[in-house]
């Protein structure tokens, strides 16, 4: 985030790593509240989706930063749309599985 900087750049990445802990703690609370019954593979899917989403944003903006404006926006639109659809699908799966487990209980 702060190229050529000896202090700000490492601080930025440490802070970004730290807020990922807060992010997943928050997601954990939301998941408990909605009784999603998160297990290892559900976490893996959710984490994988988040990682892909963040990488897509970073990739698109990297293209913008290197003056590939067209490519950056098209990439964001194409991959971003696919990921939003995939994210909605993942959420639906989590909710359906929750409802099924509640019916069995």
């Amino acid at each position, binding site marked *: 985030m702060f190229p*050529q900087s000896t202090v700000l750049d490492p601080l*930025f990445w440490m802070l*970004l790593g730290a807020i990922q802990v*807060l992010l997943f*703690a928050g997601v954990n609370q939301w998941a408990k509240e909605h009784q999603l019954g998160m297990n290892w593979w559900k976490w893996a899917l959710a984490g994988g989706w988040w990682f892909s989403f963040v990488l897509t944003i970073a990739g698109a903006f990297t293209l*913008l*930063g*290197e003056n590939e404006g067209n490519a950056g926006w098209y990439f964001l639109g194409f991959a971003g749309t696919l990921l939003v659809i995939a994210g909605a699908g993942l959420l639906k799966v989590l909710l359906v599985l929750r409802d099924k487990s509640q019916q069995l209980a």
Partner: protein
Amino acid sequence: MVDKKHSEEAAASLSRRNFLKMGGIAAATATVGAAAGAGFVAGRDPDANVGWGRTEAGKDMYFNREPFRVDKAPCLNIAGPIERPEWGDFLFNRVMSMGGSMHKDGWKPNKDWQQIPDPRVREYYSRYPERWPEMLLSFREKVKHDANLEKHRDRFALAWAYSGAFGTGLHSNFPPVPTAHPDEDDFKWVKREPMEFQSPAHASKLVKQMANKFGMSLVGVTKLDPSFVFKNMMRGMPDWGEEIPKHWKNVIIFGVPMNWDPMYAAIGYSTSFDAYYRVKQASGLMAAWLGELGYAARPQFPGADYEAMMVPLAIQAGLGEATRNGILMTPEVGPNIRLAAVFTNLDLEADKPVDLHMGHFCESCKICADSCPSGSISKADKPDTVVRGYKKYGFNQDSCWRFWQQGPSETGLGCRVCIAVCPYTRKNNWIHALVKESDPRDPTGLTRNALLAMQHNFFYYPDAENYHAEWSGGNFASYHQPPEWLRSENYLKVEKTWEYDGNWEGI
């Protein structure tokens, strides 16, 4: 009392849960913003400018070629009897000879190539008579170029000044151009009896380090293959046959990219002189260093001081592979590389060529051919011609040269559009590094196909005609718009009367 305690605990728990829930949302929002910001500056980061960033000697910008070494370069396919290149095969020899005939002897180019005074030039056009109309046109286009150029100085003043500065440096006499027989001239560097290296491997290792210290980004070593040494030419000698000096045993070949942002803004804002200057100086420094240790040296450097062809030697040294446009393509900088070399009698351990599947990439890509403003690059699906025994893509150097004379550069030299648009000509940031590392390791070709699908559908390429100058039907388009430091309207008292056609940051 107990109820109150439970009530307080419940409230605290609720508060903690709410904090985590809201904090999670805030963290997600911040992460998205940080990803966008970090991505944007990664694209802007000058550290990604291989050869020009602060990590000039940084390891992370270099591709590890070792897993891809092969005994035989996949792009040097023999399809006929091998022939050494002739004097006339070298474009600059022909151009300089015809220029001399025009200025000294009053010769005027006309439709009949058989009236060209120099028999060596005639010999070339007897082999390629269809190319003569292009060369003939180049003379007329140069006149038009010179008549129109000054009208556009306000726009290109800083770019031409940048190019001119390096051009002045380039045309200094270091390293000195040979003036005597190579058995004498190449030894002018030698200061003492040769100091023996522990082994050829030690010598190669040190030579490569020295090339980096002399400013070179990429370096390789190969044995001198006579197939790529010109016949009938030797600098410093008025007449020469087919002899190759015995002390030309090994080749140290190296290169540096052109400065990235001007290169992307080809034609008018780009120059080859920056990289030419640097490789030329490095070839001289390498020759002097070898001489200090007692070894002979024959520098080969741009613009036209060569006894051999650089690209195939670089391929043999494993720097990269051949491309559709005939330029060396490297994994780090694509075809954005300018080469120089030093022939020496020092015993060196040669590098092996590499197989990075670049040939497959060129077969499917064709972006350079589609973008070429002079239509000089073959659009065939596979290499479609045999040149001196090697199978390669057809390339018309005469129509390429004709376009140089049309382009909006002050010198009428160079175009560089095929270099700028090549998908391999990408900076060393994380997305391109990932692709460049993945594609050669993917036997299925999926990476290549996905990448090319994006290249063809997401990226903007100006129409080939638009790269032309206004006086020849274009709009001075460039693949990228020029960097801010080459825009004269940002620094000079000029009135901006033009619009840019090219990629920009899109925000």
